[in-house]
Structure formats: structure tokens, C-alpha cells
């Protein structure tokens, strides 16, 4: 029997295209692009089944219910395949590799590494802590010159209070101590260094005298200084104190306040007893990069950006000119200054452009400025400014007419480090070996702390903890949940991520399956573990509820929660977006959550279900809520609980795969096991990691690229590290912005 629809159409076999044209195109446009009355394009990530059900129930708007059953399915399939699905979108408008300038982070890293070329290479030393040196006089430099240091040893940190000399070798009335080495910055941002002392003291970080209290004066005991540091790098540190004979004791402590953390003793894992070279950190403020696609992109320029590149070029030039002897190995009044500085300018240009210069370019950027008769210092200034303002420095891979091995080297280094290639990469490109040794090169690069810092930054963003500033919680309900706890939870999460990702297996599934959490003494009390009050961070798995890796990490549980109650919607949205790759439109109205006070004796689950019951909500919340309910065993600070409002917790839920299959689970461990097997989760993770690392659309590297990477990921045993190698290798070998 023919359906009424087909009779109405009065045509032969009703294919989806015909149905769409008749019933849908007037509002949605002939290719789903929208119309004056319905301007939202018809694109999304629902499955065909879900589309069909929706059409059956709601479409056409003026006559819902008239397109059902097989017709609904046919039109849904047509829409899905013609323009709706991400694959169809990619096919219709293939994303391209856009020309991109350096992002702000890449600019800062590039300058730091450019200048590092001219510094002594860092010493490698795996020991942790600082080098402590003791002197029987106040003037340390003089004592070192005389060789009259009386004691040297490795120390874990600086926290000393003593009325007698701290080591027996110190016998003088006036004596001094120096601690030196390096400070490692795990994140980019401002670091506040704090020195507390009863004596005269001073502190240098990265060559800058951050604290000068060599003159003790009045009651000042606590000295603070703030310095901006880039992640994944070590910075020279030196702290000195002297005890004047009339002072009763020596007392000194060194602490820091790292970004997102509270003031605390610097953990010994961030200290090294060898001195790193100074790092040039550009202070010029840049406008923030576009993040509308979910990752920073340098695909637009603005007046503010252009002005910032000028200010930064002047800043870098000023830095170089102020220390020409140190960087270029020559003084301005030396007889060979012109020759040497011209060579120096050429090396800067080569490093900045990430490739050798042609003879014409050597002349244009460097040589002509150094012509006889020109002021040498001014020549260097002009040459540096021209190089730093050149698109060959400011943009990615525009230096050569044809893409070549140097472009490959650049793509590798920007993908893995967000910075310019190092000498080893450039050498490999120069000899033409780079393509054949690409995997070992990436392995080498991944071992660099800058790579670890970038990957950690990805995880912070993927897990949506990068913008959690403070987590205020109800003081009456959670009196012990304070800033220090949040700081420790961040450390706990980082320790977990580092352990999983940089272990031999580097098994992605462990992120969703691990049954332990890193806790220390302070966290132990709050999360019902059984550690001593001063215990350092260690794995804890018993007594803390059934945990499932990052899914139930207390920092995420607390982050996706209100100040007193949980928020299944935020938790569900996190899983749907970050782990299943779903996209949602914003809610039609800004809605405040129902107040628990107005709904006594209801559980959070019941209130959320009540509030999102309307049909208009269910399009999204039917997906979001059941995912979020899985976590109801974990309260607003991520502690385990068995009941709410006297009712046992119901942590059951489900989600539908894109293929339309319903996956049921009870609690986060079952959810974690499902996700760990889920191709959608693998694809979502790969896409987001790819975008963060490469900063270009994954589909621009080929419509099949996501699936290829996913299959390799599974074959490689879900190794995140091997995935990073694959991502870097494919990004590097895809040709970029050329005609």
C-alpha cells in the first residue's frame, strides 16, 4: 500500500532526495544551507536513526507526523549522506590547510629557542635539588675568587633555621650561603617566588635579580617577586643569604606559587643542581589567538597583532644589542666586529626562517646593512628588525617556493614543541635524511620536556581543567576543601597523566580504567584514604569508591559540580563532548538549575530529570543526562557517597552510539570500560589531540585521515605516544600553504 505521502508526490520510487526537495528544501535550503526563515544550516553529528526518529516526530514543522516510517528513514539517510554528517561536510567543502602565522605561544617559544642558539648548551644532570655552598665571609664572589668555600653539598630545597652555623665548617661571625641550580617550569605563566629570611638575602631567576634584600631593613622578612616563565624549560636560579655577626640566627626558606597552585615549598622534582642557560622571554603583550574552532589558530591578523610583532621585534633587538659580547662573541669596538656581527645576523636569520638563505636573501636581510661606513650596531638592529618582521619568520612554512625537507622539519617542531626546529632537525633536513628518519626524530623530540609540557597542556584543555581558576565550595558542607586542596588535586591529576602517558605502554585506556588516585596526606583526610598527615603523593585505590581514571578524578568531579551539589549535566556534557566527540547547540534559554531547597527530598538526579523533561530540552539532554548520572556516587568535591537525601544512589545510564546502538552502564567503571572500547571515543580523542598539536583541521589532511589514524592507534595498543608520532609524521608530510 502506498503511503499518503507517496500518493501526494505522485511519482515513482520515492527516494530521499525527492522527499527532501518537496517537504524540506523550502525551509532548509536545497542543500541544507538554510533559508531566510530558518538560517541555521542543517549540519550535525546525529546518527541516521536519530535523525529519522526526530523527523518522524517533528517534521515538517507545519505538519508533523506526515513523514514517517520508511520515508523518514530515507530522507534521513539522504540528508545525512548529502550534506549533514561531518564526512559529507568534509566532502562538500574540503577543509584546507590555511596559511597560519605563529600563535602567541609559538612566537614566545620560537624567540626563546632562537636566542638559545647563541647560549651555551645546558648541562645534563638527572640529580634533583640545589647545590648548597658555604662561605666563612659575607662576600661570596670574593670568597669564590679566593677559593675559600668551606662546604658544598646537594640539598633538596631551602628551609633553614639555625642559631648555630648550619655546617661545622662554618666558623666565622659573618658567613654566607649560596644555593644555585635551575628551576623547572611545568606550566606557562607567572611564578611568584617567595624568600622568607631573618637575614640579608637575594634571589636571581633567569638572570634577573628578582629579590634584593641583601640589606635587611626593619621588620621585612618575606620578600616576593614574580617572573613569567614558559612551560617545559629550566631557568637558572641563585639564592644567597648572609648572617651578620650581630644577628642571633640564620633563617631562610624558599617557596613558590606556581600558576594554579598555592604557595608551597618548591617540589624537589622541579629543582636541579646545574645551572641552565638564561631563556629570553618576550614580555610584549600579544592579542589572544582565535580559539573558535577549539584550538588556537593563527589564521587571522589584526592591527593589534601587527603592532605587537613590532614591539616584540624591538624588544628582542634590544635584548640582543644589550648583550652582543655574550651572544655574538665580539665587542662593538673590536676590529672584526663588522664581519662577526654580519655572520651573527645571518645565523639569526637562518634560525628564524628555519632554513638557509639564498644569496639574494643573504644580501637583502643581512649583508647590505653591514656595508662599510654604516654604523655596525645600527646595521645589526636593522637586520634583526627586518628578519623579525618578515613573513618568513612570522608565518608557517612560507620560506621556499616548493615544500621541502626544511618545511618538514618546521612542521615537526611546531607540532611537537610549538617552536622552531633545533640544529639536529635542520641538519637532518640539510642532508636529506629527514624523511627516512622521521620516526626516530619524533621519538627524540617527544623526550624533550617541551613536548611533555605541550602534551600536558592538551590534557588540561581536553579535561577542561585549564580554566578552572578557583573552585569555591560550600564552606559549611565542605570546610576542608580549600585552595590548598585544589592545588594538590592538580598535582594529583598531573602525576596520574604523566604516569600513564609517559609510561612504556602509554595506554590510553588506562586513562579511563585506572582504579587509583594519587593522594597525599592533606588529600587523604578529605577523600577517606588512610595516609599519614605528612605523606607524599602516592597511589591509593582502596576506600575511595570505585574510581575510573580521569572520569572520576576528584578535580574533574569538583570542577563539574556546583558549590554544594553535583551537576550531572556538566559531567554528562564533558563525557559527550570530550570523550564521545558530540556537538551540541547552546540551550535555547539560559536556565538556572532548580534549587534543592525548593525541591526537598529529591535527589539531584530527580531534579535534573524534572527540569529537562520538556520536549525542547530532550533533543540534547536525552544524551547528556544519562551520561552524567553515572557519576552520582561522587559529590560536589568528588568524595564517594552511597546515598543522597536518604536514598541510595542510582548511577545507571546509557548512551546511543552513532550507529544507533544503545550502550547501558551502571556507574563510572562500567562507563569507563565502554568508552575504552568505543571507536567514537578513540576518534574524538584523536581528533582533539590532532587539532591541539597541529593547529589545522584534521580533515584537511585527507577525509580518510581520522579513520586511518584511529586504526593505527588500535593496532599500536592504544599508545598515546605512538599516536603522537603518527600525528607529527602525517602533519609533517602534508604539504601546506602553497599555490
Amino acid at each position, binding site marked *: 500500500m502506498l503511503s499518503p505521502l507517496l500518493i501526494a508526490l505522485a511519482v515513482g520510487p520515492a527516494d530521499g532526495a525527492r522527499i527532501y526537495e518537496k517537504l524540506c528544501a523550502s525551509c532548509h535550503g536545497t542543500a541544507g544551507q538554510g533559508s531566510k526563515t530558518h538560517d541555521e544550516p542543517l549540519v550535525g553529528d546525529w546518527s541516521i536513526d536519530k535523525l529519522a526518529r526526530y523527523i518522524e516526530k517533528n517534521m515538517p514543522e507545519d505538519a508533523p507526523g506526515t513523514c514517517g516510517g520508511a520515508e523518514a528513514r530515507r530522507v534521513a539517510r539522504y540528508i545525512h549522506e548529502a550534506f549533514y554528517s561531518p564526512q559529507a561536510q568534509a566532502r562538500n567543502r574540503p577543509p584546507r590547510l590555511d596559511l597560519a602565522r605563529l600563535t602567541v605561544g609559538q612566537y614566545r617559544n620560537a624567540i626563546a629557542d632562537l636566542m638559545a642558539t647563541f647560549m651555551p648548551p645546558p648541562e645534563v644532570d638527572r640529580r634533583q635539588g640545589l647545590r648548597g655552598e658555604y662561605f666563612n665571609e659575607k662576600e661570596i664572589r670574593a670568597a669564590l675568587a679566593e677559593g675559600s668555600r668551606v662546604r658544598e653539598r646537594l640539598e633538596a630545597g631551602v628551609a633553614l633555621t639555625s642559631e648555630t652555623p648550619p655546617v661545622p665548617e662554618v666558623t666565622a661571625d659573618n658567613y654566607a650561603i649560596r644555593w644555585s641550580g635551575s628551576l623547572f617550569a611545568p606550566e606557562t605563566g607567572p611564578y611568584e617566588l617567595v624568600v622568607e629570611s631573618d637575614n*640579608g638575602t637575594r634571589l636571581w631567576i633567569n638572570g634577573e635579580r628578582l629579590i634584593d634584600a641583601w640589606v635587611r631593613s626593619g621588620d621585612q622578612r618575606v620578600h616576593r617577586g614574580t617572573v613569567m616563565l614558559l612551560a617545559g624549560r629550566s631557568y637558572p636560579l641563585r639564592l644567597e643569604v648572609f648572617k*651578620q655577626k650581630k644577628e642571633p640566627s640564620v633563617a631562610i626558606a624558599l617557596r613558590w606559587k606556581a600558576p594554579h597552585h598555592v604557595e608551597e615549598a618548591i617540589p624537589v622534582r622541579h629543582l636541579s643542581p646545574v645551572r641552565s642557560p638564561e631563556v629570553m622571554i618576550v614580555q610584549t603583550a600579544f592579542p589572544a589567538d582565535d580559539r573558535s574552532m577549539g584550538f588556537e589558530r593563527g589564521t587571522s591578523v589584526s592591527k593589534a597583532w601587527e603592532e605587537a610583532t613590532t614591539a616584540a621585534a*624591538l624588544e628582542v633587538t634590544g635584548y640582543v644589542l644589550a648583550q652582543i659580547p655574550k651572544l655574538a662573541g665580539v665587542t662593538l669596538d673590536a676590529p672584526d666586529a663588522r664581519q662577526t656581527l654580519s655572520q651573527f645576523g645571518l645565523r639569526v636569520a637562518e634560525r628564524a626562517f628555519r632554513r638557509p638563505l639564498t644569496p639574494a636573501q643573504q644580501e637583502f636581510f643581512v649583508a647590505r646593512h653591514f656595508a662599510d661606513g654604516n654604523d655596525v650596531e645600527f646595521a645589526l*638592529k636593522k637586520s634583526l628588525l*627586518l628578519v623579525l618582521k618578515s613573513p618568513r619568520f612570522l608565518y608557517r612554512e612560507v620560506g621556499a617556493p616548493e615544500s621541502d625537507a626544511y618545511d618538514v622539519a618546521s612542521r615537526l617542531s611546531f607540532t611537537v614543541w610549538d617552536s622552531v626546529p633545533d640544529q639536529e632537525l635542520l641538519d637532518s633536513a640539510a642532508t636529506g635524511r629527514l624523511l627516512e628518519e622521521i620516526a626516530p626524530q619524533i621519538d627524540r623530540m617527544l623526550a624533550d620536556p617541551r613536548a611533555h609540557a605541550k602534551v600536558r597542556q592538551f590534557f588540561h584543555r581536553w579535561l577542561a581543567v585549564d580554566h578552572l581558576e578557583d573552585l569555591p565550595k560550600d564552606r559549611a558542607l565542605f570546610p576542608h576543601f580549600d585552595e590548598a586542596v585544589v592545588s594538590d588535586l592538580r598535582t594529583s591529576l598531573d602525576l596520574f597523566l604523566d604516569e600513564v602517558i609517559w609510561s612504556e605502554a602509554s595506554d590510553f585506556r588506562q586513562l579511563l580504567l585506572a582504579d587509583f588516585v594519587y593522594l597525599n596526606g592533606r588529600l587523604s583526610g578529605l577523600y577517606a584514604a588512610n595516609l599519614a598527615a605528612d605523606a607524599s603523593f602516592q597511589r591509593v585505590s582502596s576506600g575511595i569508591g570505585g574510581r575510573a581514571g580521569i572520569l572520576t578524578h576528584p578535580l574533574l568531579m569538583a570542577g563539574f559540580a556546583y558549590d554544594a551539589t553535583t551537576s550531572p549535566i556538566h559531567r554528562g556534557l564533558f563525557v559527550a563532548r570530550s570523550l564521545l566527540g558530540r556537538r551540541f547547540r547552546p540551550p535555547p534559554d539560559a536556565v538556572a538549575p532548580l534549587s534543592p531547597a525548593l525541591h526537598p527530598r529529591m535527589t539531584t538526579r530527580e531534579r535534573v530529570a524534572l527540569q529537562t523533561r520538556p520536549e525542547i530540552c530532550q533533543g540534547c539532554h536525552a544524551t547528556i543526562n544519562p551520561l552524567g548520572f553515572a557519576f552520582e556516587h561522587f559529590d560536589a568535591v568528588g568524595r564517594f557517597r552511597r546515598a543522597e537525601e536518604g536514598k541510595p544512589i542510582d548511577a545507571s545510564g546509557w548512551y546511543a552510539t552513532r550507529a544507533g546502538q544503545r550502550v547501558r552502564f551502571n556507574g563510572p567503571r562500567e562507563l569507563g570500560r565502554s568508552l575504552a572500547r568505543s571507536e567514537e571515543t578513540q576518534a574524538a580523542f584523536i581528533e582533539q589531540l590532532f587539532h591541539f598539536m597541529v593547529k589545522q583541521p584534521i580533515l584537511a589532511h585527507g577525509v580518510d585521515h581520522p579513520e586511518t589514524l584511529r586504526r593505527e592507534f588500535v593496532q599500536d595498543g592504544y599508545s598515546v605516544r605512538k599516536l603522537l608520532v603518527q600525528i607529527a609524521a602525517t602533519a609533517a608530510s602534508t604539504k601546506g600553504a602553497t599555490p
Partner: protein
Amino acid sequence: MTTRRDLLRGIGCAATPFLTGLAFASPGQARKQRLIVMFSPNGIVPSTFWPDEVGETFTLKTILEPLAPFRDRTLILRGVSNKMAGDGDGHMRGMGCLLTGIELFRGNLQGGSMTPAGWAKGPSIDQQLKNFLQSRPETRTRFGSLEFGVQVGDRADVWTRMVYGGPNSPIAPISDPYQMLNKLYGRAKDQRALTSILDDVRADLAAVGSRLGVEDRRLLEEHATFVREMERQMQVTPEGPTPDLPTGVKSRNEDLPRASRMQIDLMVNALANDFARVATLQYTRSVGQARMTWIGVDRAHHDLSHKSEKDAQAQADLTKINRWFCGELAYLVKSLAETREPGSDRSLLDGTTVVWANELGQGNHTRDNIPFVLVGGGLGFRTGRSLHYQRVPHNRLLLSLAHGFGHHIERFGNPEMCVDGPLADLT
């Protein structure tokens, strides 16, 4: 065109500072007022310094003789004492309390005697006045104040700092003329370098853009429009030419006279450009050990200052040293007198009061009779006089400086030293 280098090489001749980027004041504009404090250390020789007479008729003795051409613009104040008690020895309190008028904190700096001390407990008068002037739009300048030094030495302690932003906040003077030049004119030099490469930047953008596809080229074309905008802006607001300094002046003892003249020239230049209304010029430091070989004095200044008053050779050398400092003061005053206040028919000296000060009265560590000499018309004091007070606290002079700017504070520093208000009969 005459360059700055030519002018600075002409030190000793009449070197009118070359004025750059002058703003022309409108006729009815309020008179600009400026304060310069010049410091030299270790006290003076009373017998060759203080005039015998009081009042308008007096004779300048050996040390002050270089001021003879400006005798009518000069005011000599005898009997003003730095009476600060508390921690620190004479040099330390002499220096740290000279412009702050307040005691030193307890601390870990041990002087030659007395208890150890730290920094001063309050701001210095120049910084107080800088903040006052910067708080009002009509007297606000780019820097507010400039702190010049001449061979102060690379140490930070109470002997090397007389300027304080507040309690425990000493401000370091800049002893390197090249560093000061860069602070004052670095921006102009940057602009000159930038202007000279802008054509090349655009050519480079076009060369790279020509290899790109249409969509990508658009980005570079947009970039190029911003470069053109910058160029237009720089044409609208050009910076003046940059003064040139003689090269090779270092922190060696024998370079002290050349550094002194460079700093004075830069200071007068900066004031003429209205970069600041307050400036300090600090020669060496308290306990400074300059060896003035260029005037035939081989022994170090502080060592000499402790010789007996009966040691005629030492007193003659000390007189020479202080006379040399006075000569630098005279050069500063002369430069100010020969530089026209932009937009007026007055000289810079008409709008400037220069205060010459010392941390001691003489080498025996007394802080009585601090040798204060004031030159110029900036604060409206009646000059051409030698005055003699009876051990009045120097806070009252500091108050007078503030009142001269119309900043009518009742106390500055230790309030007990301020009860009688500004010094009588300065105006």
C-alpha cells in the same frame, strides 16, 4: 646640521644642549618649575667654603668661586643640620636621611661605629614632589623624575642611595650615560630603525605573497595594510633626532669628568624636552673614594676627609676636590642659563632650583652645617644671599622645597623636626 656629537665634543666651550623634539608652550601657560638635587660626599672644608658675611654682600671663597658668574642667583645656607638619631653611623644617617628627613630602619648594615641599620623609613623629598607633580595633568611629564649618577658603584646599600620611593624602597641612580641615553631616547632610535626598514618589510611581504594561492595571499595583503598604517602613524608623530654621545666612557676613575659632563648635558636636554621636572645627580656615594688625578689630587676622597684639620696639604686637596664639584655645579647652572625655556623668553635656570647637598658638614662626621647651596629661580627663593641659621633641622628646608612647588605639606619625614614649618626668610 650640527650633531649632538659635535656639541658634546665641545665640552669646555659653551655647549648649549641641542634640543630635540621641543614642544612649544602657549604664551599664557603656567611657569614650569623644576628641582635638581646634586650630591657630593664626605663634607667640605668650612674655612674655604662658607662666606664670612651674612646677607646680600658676601664674598665667594675658593670652593664656591666657580659660582661667581651666578652669584646673584645663588643662596648659601649655613646652620642647617641633619639631626636624625637612631640606627646607623654618621655617613649612613647622613646619606639615608638627607632627602628623606626620617630615620633608618634596624638592619644588617654595619657602619664604622654605632648599631647596624637598613634603609630609610620614608620617601625622599624629590620623589614626594615627583608624585605631587605627576598627580596633576598640567605638570605631568613622561618620566616625572630622573635619577642620574656619576660612578656611584655597583652596590645597593644605604651609602649608595639617597632617593627613596617610600619606606624600604631605595631608587638606584643610573651611572652609565649610555644607559640613560637609551632610557631617554631609545624610543626615537627604535623609530628611526623601523622607518628605515618599512619599505623592505612590504617588499618582503609582497615577494612571499606572490607565491601563495589567492586565499592565503589575502592574509598577507591584510598584514601589509597594517604595516602601511604604522608607517602613516609614525609620519604623524615623529620623534626628534637622538643625541649622540662620545663613545668609550667607562666606569674608570679617570673617566669621571667626562661621565659628569655627559650626564649634565643629558639632564639639561631632558629638562628642556620636559621629560621630567625633578632630577637628581649623585656623585659617587657617601664615603666615595674618587681619586681626582685630573686636578692633581692622588689620594682618595674619603681617606682625605679624615685627615686632621691641621694637615694643610689634606685641607688644600679637599678644597680642590670640592671646588671641582662646584665647577660641575657651575657647568650645570650655566647650561641651564644658556638654554631657553621652550615657548618663552626665559632660561631654564629661571624655572629651576638646583640644590647642592652633602651627607656631612665635614669629614669628622658632623651633620651640622650641611653645605646647602641653592641656585636658580625655580622655587621663587630670594637669591644673591648668604644666610646663617642656628642648627635648624634640615626637614624645614625639605618643607621649603615642597612649599616652593605649591605643595603645602605641614610635615615631611620625622614630624618633630617640622614643628617650626618651612625655613623663614628664604622667599
